[in-house]
């Protein structure tokens, strides 16, 4: 066997970040942008304007089955969720389908735990790790609702799309899962969809966000914001 390099995981937005001159850092085996411009500008964009961040490394699981809810309740002591509602990174997409978001690198454990629990309960529940399959782009800032209204037909007003809500919709002619995850009171939305469309979605957001002076934001700014 002949392998010299340590495997490194790249997101579908890696080349874009390279072109933008980002500096990179590593997050649980993923190489991700640390800073694109300046930390100060990126934090300011997120808090006062509009920022765009690559959060593809976040773990992503799908839990499917008529008994998925009971497995979740037993395993994670989770209360009942209605469709589109979420709590603590767990979102109900259909009666029998949940999306689970974990911090980077935690998906394998979560998967194992849920698979074991379903097997123990003799329930027909399928847990699938789709972390690599989905790009995750977070739009952050006071202008994020306005930006999304240019690419998606959903109503992003907090009364219609409260924090910790997940909706699947057409966004810029593609199917995406949109989760509202505000950051300390600043509106923020995660857009999760096929990784092969990640670069397209990013470019479309940048184009639509030009009028709001959208700024790519790296891991350092996110960390400073408490993400």
């Amino acid at each position: 066997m002949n392998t010299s390099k340590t495997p490194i995981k790249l997101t579908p937005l890696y080349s874009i970040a390279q072109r933008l001159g980002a500096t990179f850092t590593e997050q649980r085996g993923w190489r991700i942008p640390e800073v694109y411009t300046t930390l100060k500008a990126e934090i300011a964009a997120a808090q006062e304007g509009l920022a765009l961040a690559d959060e593809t490394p976040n773990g992503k699981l799908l839990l499917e089955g008529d008994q998925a809810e009971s497995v979740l309740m037993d395993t994670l002591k989770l209360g009942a969720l209605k469709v589109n509602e979420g709590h603590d990174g767990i979102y109900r997409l259909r009666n029998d389908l949940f999306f689970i978001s974990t911090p980077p690198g935690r998906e394998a454990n979560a998967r194992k735990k849920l698979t074991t629990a379903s097997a123990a309960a003799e329930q027909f529940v399928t847990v699938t790790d789709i972390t690599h399959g989905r790009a995750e782009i977070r739009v952050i800032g006071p202008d994020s609702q306005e930006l999304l209204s240019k690419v998606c037909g959903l109503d992003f007003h907090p009364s219609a799309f409260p924090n910790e809500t997940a909706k699947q919709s057409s966004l810029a002619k593609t199917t995406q899962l949109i989760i509202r995850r505000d950051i300390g009171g600043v509106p923020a939305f995660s857009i999760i969809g096929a990784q092969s469309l990640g670069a397209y979605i990013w470019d479309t957001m940048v184009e639509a966000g030009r009028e709001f002076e959208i700024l790519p934001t790296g891991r350092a700014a996110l960390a400073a914001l408490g993400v």
Partner: protein
Amino acid sequence: MRDGVSPHFAIIYQVSGAVIGELMQTEQDTLKTTPNRLHPKQGEVIDRSTTIRFTFDGVKYIAHPGDTVASALTAAGVKVLSRSFKYHRPRGLLCCAGHCPNCLVQIGDEPNVRACMRSVEAGMDVRAQNVWPSLNRDLLSLTQLGSRLMPVGFYYKTFIRPKKLWPLYEHTLRHAAGLGEVDIDTPSGKFDKQYLHTDVVVVGSGPAGISAALGAAEGGAQVLLFDENSALGGHLRFTVPLHSSLPSQVSKDLPELLEALSQQPNVTAFTDTSVLGWYQDNWLCAAKGARLFKIRTKSVVVATGAYETPLIFDNNDLPGVMLGSAAQRLLHLFGVLPGRQVVIVTANEDGWDVAADLQALGVNVAAIVDEREHNACSSPYRDGLANIGVPVFYRHTIREAIGSSAVSGAKIVRLDGRGEIAPATTQVLQCDLIVTSMGWTPATELLYMAGGKSEYSADRAETVPVSTPPGIYVAGRAAGIHAVDSQITEAWQAGSNAATFAGFGEFDELAAQASDISEPRRTSERVCVPGKKKRFVCYCEDVTDEDVETAIAEGYDSIELLKRYSTISMGPCQGAMCSMNTIHLCARANGRTVQETGTTTARPPIAPVTLGALAGQNVEPVQTTPIHQWHLDHGANMMVAGLWLRPNHYGDPAAEAVCVRKQGGLIDVSPLGKLQLTGPGVPKLLERIYTNQWHNLRVGRVRYGVMCNDEGVVLNDGVCAHLKDETWYMTTTSTGATAVFEWLQWWLQSGWGEGVHLTDLTDTYAAFNLAGPQSRTVLEKLTARNLANKAFPYMRIRSAKIADVPCQLLRIGFTGELAYEVHCPSGYALHVWEALMDVGRELGIAPFGLEAQRILRLEKGHIIVGQDTDAMSDPLSANMAWAVKLNKPDFLGKPSLMRISAEGPKQLLVGFKMVDPDVVPAEGLQVVAPEVDGRLKIIGWVTSSRFSPTLEEAIGLCWLPADLASQNGASFTIRMGGDLKAAHVHHGAFYDPSGERLRM
């Protein structure tokens, strides 16, 4: 004159180049002054502190910021702005509100811009459109001489014979008719769209619209207020009485309303925004320049006002004939005099308001021609104007506008006791402006689209809404309310009701949406004054009242038929200027009432909108594989496949194919559809959706399968692997991945989902196919897994770490060589690919693209679903009978395949070789055979063809009649351009027919 060629066209084409040059040389290169600009006045929207320059047909003009193109040109004394659609008659400002075709111009590369709505920008290049050779000397206006050749519905009557001349007619008509020109070389502009969500939408921001918005917002609703004009206020912006000595009822209202609006945080106002249409469930569409809004609202207040109705009389389209509201817009918004000597033709107090305005600003009011009796006029200006000597003609109307390219006088006539023209009463008045104020047509298109109904009130000669669907409210002039005080109070209530409907507060049953309207009549029933010249009903389409009569006489007597036959109301203004008048004319000609005649159906878009705005952002989704950048960095020639961008080749596809055969190659097949199926019900599902058997496929094995629809037509193909007890891994074609996923979802949700979960992993795994005799050696350097043929034979799947990354290895391939498909988590794709390339390079492995793959698969005779098959192809005919098990229980397509099997396929997909090995017939070419009479009959077609670098000859696949296809070596002919090329049938794979190489 030759057969059927109209004399005027002959004249046009006989004009020599020299004459044209002379005609074009009419303009001077001097800056035009603005003799018609008034002194500054309150309420105007122009900024006089600065000037900007622009050109109109090459002549320089000045404007102030805030001017429209039309106001600036009128200030400079320009009267003719366009030529009419069919007869090329000169046209000038009519409505000044964006509701007619008379001011359409070309600005830069943008055609059909309404000059009265577009603000001037410095350096603007404005041009007249549809004129030849110039606006002021348009030779195409000579078509008036031959207008008998273009009666109503002329396209059904003339220019038909002789048939062979149609190309000439068509060319000529296209040249003569039409609007602006689209320059296809112009780069597409930036367009986008935005979705808006709200509780209440108010359309129109006149006093009624603003008041409705306030009423709704005070109830707590979020309100979006739209207006097509550049500022809020509607008619209050320009119906401000100037006579300080005369009572001013309304001047105080607009500032108050605007102030209240500015204090109301629940209202968001959009100016310069046209609402284009109403759709199901209160979904509205609006356009603001390059942006399209799609608006979802709970309720709507239609406060769209009314169109001032033109009067039809001889030469009523002459530049200088203008609506009263247009004159007021020019005066009050832009400080521009529309003329120096005016005749006002009216039937209501609005006309007197205009007369008072014009007189106060120094225009000589040559006459007020009022069709009413003296005592029917209650204008506050009546006595004042008479006292200062303005001539007033009661019981008179206009008969004709005099002038050739602009108004120079007006013929007026007396009306007898029955309202008819009294003989021998014609008088000629000198004037350069004729203003008509004859009445109003409520702008109710949105109301009608939403399902609302109006009825014609003969007393008021207007339609009045009688029913509105739930959640739709009407206010202001659209509801037949003209008095500003009533507009404000009634609209407030309408807004409040709209908010209640949207869930804010309780309904006040007593507060009617619109109380009983008892207003004085503002609209005359006289829509047409008979005469001897052309009288235009529809300005957009150049249709006259005589055309309407002719059409009705020819049997097109219902209003909908009349519209379609005459094209009335189908022009850029969509009937704003002509619909009501046409209904009156139609009613009269049929001896019916206006109410009985009905209206035509209102459809979006109400206002003109660019295709760019409808299309939105010029982006289409593009899918790229995780190693897309690697391909670009290595000189890949990319091609579009579905939504994917994929390497077609890296420079030399034939060499890539040879390399695969000799050493090996690596191709990025990440776009392959990859579906995970789990659960005890999977084998049963596979049996139903594939045509072959699945229940017996053991863990670790892979099988090829074909999917058909209910008609037995091939939908997709691919392999499916049995990974674990209840876990299966299916691959589909790259472009069919989404369709197969949806197809399976459909069946799972339609009763076949018991015990099956389906997950799309297409993007979760990247996939690379390592093919060629060296592939095993390469892989062995990167994995500890035993790859020996015995341990890992053909059509098997194994988990393995490749370059330290956990992967699935499938021993399959499309090339006919020993091959492994490596499926790895997408994030690791570049690492794995580079590891394979690093090791492979030493062994002569090179990347290959889709083109090489197509050559290689063709050499093996493998088909590509969608290329070699179409929407009629079944697997029995498409050389896949081996993958169809008709003896298994029911599966999708089985009944159809049973029938085809019993009858025998009529066409078969089969391989072929060319007799001349260097001739490669293009895909899609016909296979032909001579008939008895010697003519060639199409008997088949080529679906795939390539020059095989391995076999060094042209090979391909084609559809042939079954009897011919079943004879190995049989000859047939392919039509290539004018030549016939010989080919012969080839059964089996062209390369390695026994399949030894892939089992090595």
